[in-house]
């Protein structure tokens, strides 16, 4: 009985694939890209940068992906997990998108990934860093062009252990991205022989840091590792400096600490060292060309989010090319993406078996309002994809 069902299921699947292929056989058909990103609210700037990056690649490519014209279906996800499933379903069933691109907020991305898995729709995550997306919840249909929370923090842990630091205090908000970041850092730092003196957390989005600063001053660790992002990051860095700790106890964190916040931090941010998969002042020609083009097109400087959007388009192009430009031949598209080397402005990367970038992590230093690259601290770092059965 079970076998019959399986065979019936398989037949239905191949019929569906065949039908999709027939549907896709018309050369005039356009590729439909669903952009489900935040265009209002706190993450609006990130959603726009990702969109700009994605469209820039398509336009550089003659307005085409896989040799076909591209059209977009766009929805504002509002960074609201409660609306995520419905929005994603609309994209798939009503708009009939060939690929779903989104999003920034991890909670929304997790809901989207479930829809993508259930409906066998290809999805590319251009930012959300939740480890689970390419961990226990990984799927053949879900790819990521950005990073996992684990990656930049693990690289920082390795780097600080190599520096010979022994004793570190961590501070973060008590929510999954912060906890995943600290866990990644701790794993590498303890493997390297270091010890976490104390893990401090506070509820999101509380920003009253003064009690922690007082405690750090009395514990006197070798360094402090923090995960904060956005306004909370700017405040932490300013408070840390105002408490006089910056000169005696160095502060480190993943790049989200400084990205987009340098203006707000002012002098307090100068000299901070952070780790991320992108940096200002990379010396590769690809990045230079990307930046010049982006600046000319949008009258703004690109950031890591624009790069992730740009690479999402590149990844899909690689998949389509492997499938002869036919989005209906999903297995070939997926294989094509899995085996591609993406020539990214951040430096070339490939994808892990769980579909997360295997990429270099840079150490960056804040200098004159930029996150300037210092060195590659972890070459070709691959997320361990714990719990992924692909």
């Amino acid at each position, binding site marked *: 009985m079970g076998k019959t069902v399986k065979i019936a299921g398989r037949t239905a699947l191949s019929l569906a694939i065949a039908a999709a292929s027939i549907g896709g056989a018309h050369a005039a058909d356009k590729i439909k890209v669903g952009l489900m990103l935040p265009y209002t609210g706190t993450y609006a700037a990130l959603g726009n940068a990702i969109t700009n990056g994605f469209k820039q690649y398509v336009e550089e490519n003659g307005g085409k992906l896989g040799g076909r014209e591209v059209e977009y279906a766009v929805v504002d996800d509002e960074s609201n997990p409660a609306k995520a499933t419905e929005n994603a379903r609309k994209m798939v069933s009503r708009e009939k998108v060939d690929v779903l691109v989104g999003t920034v907020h991890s909670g929304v991305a997790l809901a989207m990934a479930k829809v993508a898995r259930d409906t066998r729709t290809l999805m590319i995550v251009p930012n959300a860093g939740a480890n689970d997306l390419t961990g226990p919840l990984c799927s053949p249909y879900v790819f990521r062009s950005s990073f996992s929370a684990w990656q930049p923090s693990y690289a920082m842990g390795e780097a600080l252990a190599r520096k010979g630091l022994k004793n570190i205090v961590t501070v973060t908000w008590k929510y999954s991205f912060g906890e995943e970041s600290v866990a990644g850092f701790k794993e590498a730092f303890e493997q390297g022989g270091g010890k976490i003196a104390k893990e401090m957390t*506070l509820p999101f989005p509380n920003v009253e840091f003064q*009690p922690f600063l*007082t405690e750090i001053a009395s514990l006197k660790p070798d360094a402090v590792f923090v995960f904060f992002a956005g*306004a909370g990051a700017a405040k932490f860095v300013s408070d840390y400096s105002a408490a006089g700790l910056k000169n005696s106890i160095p502060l480190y964190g993943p790049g989200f600490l400084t990205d987009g916040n340098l203006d707000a931090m002012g002098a307090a941010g100068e000299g901070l060292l952070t780790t991320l998969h992108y940096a200002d002042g990379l010396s590769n020609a690809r990045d230079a060309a990307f930046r010049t083009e982006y600046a000319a097109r949008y009258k703004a400087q690109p950031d890591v989010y624009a790069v992730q959007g740009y690479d999402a388009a590149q990844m899909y192009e690689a998949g389509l090319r492997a499938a002869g430009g036919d989005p209906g031949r999903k297995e070939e598209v997926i294989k094509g993406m899995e085996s591609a080397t993406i020539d990214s402005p951040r430096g070339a990367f490939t994808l892990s078996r769980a579909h997360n970038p295997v990429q270099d992590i840079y150490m960056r230093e804040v200098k004159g309002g930029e996150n300037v690259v210092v060195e590659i601290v972890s070459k070709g770092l691959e997320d361990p994809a714990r719990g992924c059965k692909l």
Partner: protein
Amino acid sequence: MDFASFLIQTLNSLQYGLLLFLVASGLTLVFGIMGIINLAHGSFYMVGAYLAFVLSSATGSLVMAIVLGIPLALVFGAILEWALFSHLYKRDHLEQVLLTYGLILIFEQLRSLLVGDDVHGVAIPAFLDASIQLTEVMSYPVYRLAISAVCVALAVALYYVIQRTRLGMMIRAGNDDRSMVESLGINIDMIYRVVFALGVALAALAGMLAAPISSVFPNMGSQVLIISFVIVVIGGIGSVWGALVAALIVGFADTFGKVLIPELSGIVVYVVMAVVLLWRPEGILKKG
């Protein structure tokens, strides 16, 4: 915790509590005296912070920004009261909640259109941009101490105005019995307008003072709104003095909660609120 740390944590508690008082005092006035549940109070804090950012970038000085910003906030408050809130006094609380929640959304969108969604910093005035060395590694920014001093001065001034002046007497009377005050020939509408404008100005001033240490960012008002309501409820609705006591309690609970029981730091303040309400359901100090 050694003794030096304990003293510094006490200082942290006082300083945090006083800043909370500044935000909550305006809310307790408007809520207690006028009976308006004003969810947009946090937005006034946000407006103040953005005023500090815009005006201090334009004039090059935070002090100048505050001098210009307070009259702007007063006028803004008076106009809002005249145009919207004055129609709400006789309506029920649900309609007030709807209007003021709508205002939050409108203010946030206006902020987004006018200033954008980036995080901004505001420079501390040069004469306060120093710090005092407390221990070998820890120092304390003078600006934070200055904020505390301003908060204490305002608390005293508010107490004086409400308890010792004719205006304060009319405010208190209006609080007790609106129609009686009207029949005595006092222009109660004007009193309410003044109180509301004062409430807006207090929230905006809190935002302006906090801007250099909290930075200026979208939705910053929602962070202070909930804690302000907690303080108003603990202190007793309408009591400025109660708000001060409650703000200090919250400051201590939050600070020492984070240090002593970090796993539960998110709920310490609310546990304190629950205990106080069991003990005194009307808040520590009733209206007055």
